[in-house]
């Protein structure tokens, strides 16, 4: 029987075949949910789905698209927002 902490489903299971032919279970931390646009809730492209500790090892340019609101808004929502700002200034 697994320990109590492994029965809650907090950790994801990985089935590993041992040399003796039996399969054992290893437990890993679950990945965070995918990044979504703050406006339209679409999934964002170009934002890796990694644990925060692993994200720090990736260069910053690989963590989010290099544009205003990159990694927060999708490109179409960003364009709409910029258009609004420009037209308000007019």
């Amino acid at each position, binding site marked *: 029987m697994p320990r109590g902490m492994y029965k809650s489903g907090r950790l994801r299971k990985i089935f590993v075949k041992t040399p003796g032919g039996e399969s054992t279970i290893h437990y890993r931390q679950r990945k965070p949910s995918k990044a979504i646009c703050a406006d339209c809730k679409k999934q964002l492209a170009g934002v890796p789905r990694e644990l925060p500790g692993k994200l720090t090892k990736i260069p910053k340019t690989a963590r989010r698209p*290099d*544009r*205003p609101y990159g990694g927060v808004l999708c*490109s179409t929502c*960003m*364009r709409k927002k*910029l*258009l609004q*700002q*420009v*037209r308000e200034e*007019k």
Partner: protein
Amino acid sequence: MSLFTIGRLCVKLAGRDAGKKCVVVEEIDNTFVLVDGNVRRKRVNTKHLEPLKETLDLKAKASHEQVKAAFETLGLSVWDKKSKQSTERPRRIRAIKEKVAEAKKEAKVKKEKKTEATSKETPTKGIEATVTKETETEEKPETEKPEETSENQEVTEQQ
């Protein structure tokens, strides 16, 4: 008549220069336009531009410097290429270290000499005779001694 004539100020809406101001420098096509200013000098689809009221006095195919001059009259900044400068790899420089070590040694020797000199000057006259040893600095106290003694003698004579 398109809005994107030469000299029209625009705002870029797409890409890494989105939200920055630029100027139309050349009309390439119905859809494409050459753009310069606070952005990379680039061919751009007019769908990715939002025109503004202002226009600048520019010739067709104006150079980046002319655009820069025109932008500065409006009080706007201009994007400039940052050429990478290769920084030197940090290395341990041995020669300097040795020099430092030599300087330290010299300083130490000087200090020792000073201390020796002071130690030999300070002792009282009675002990001096016993203290004198076969060191290199013997000459100095020997030269000093007779003077001192002569002075002392003079003092005694005056008394």
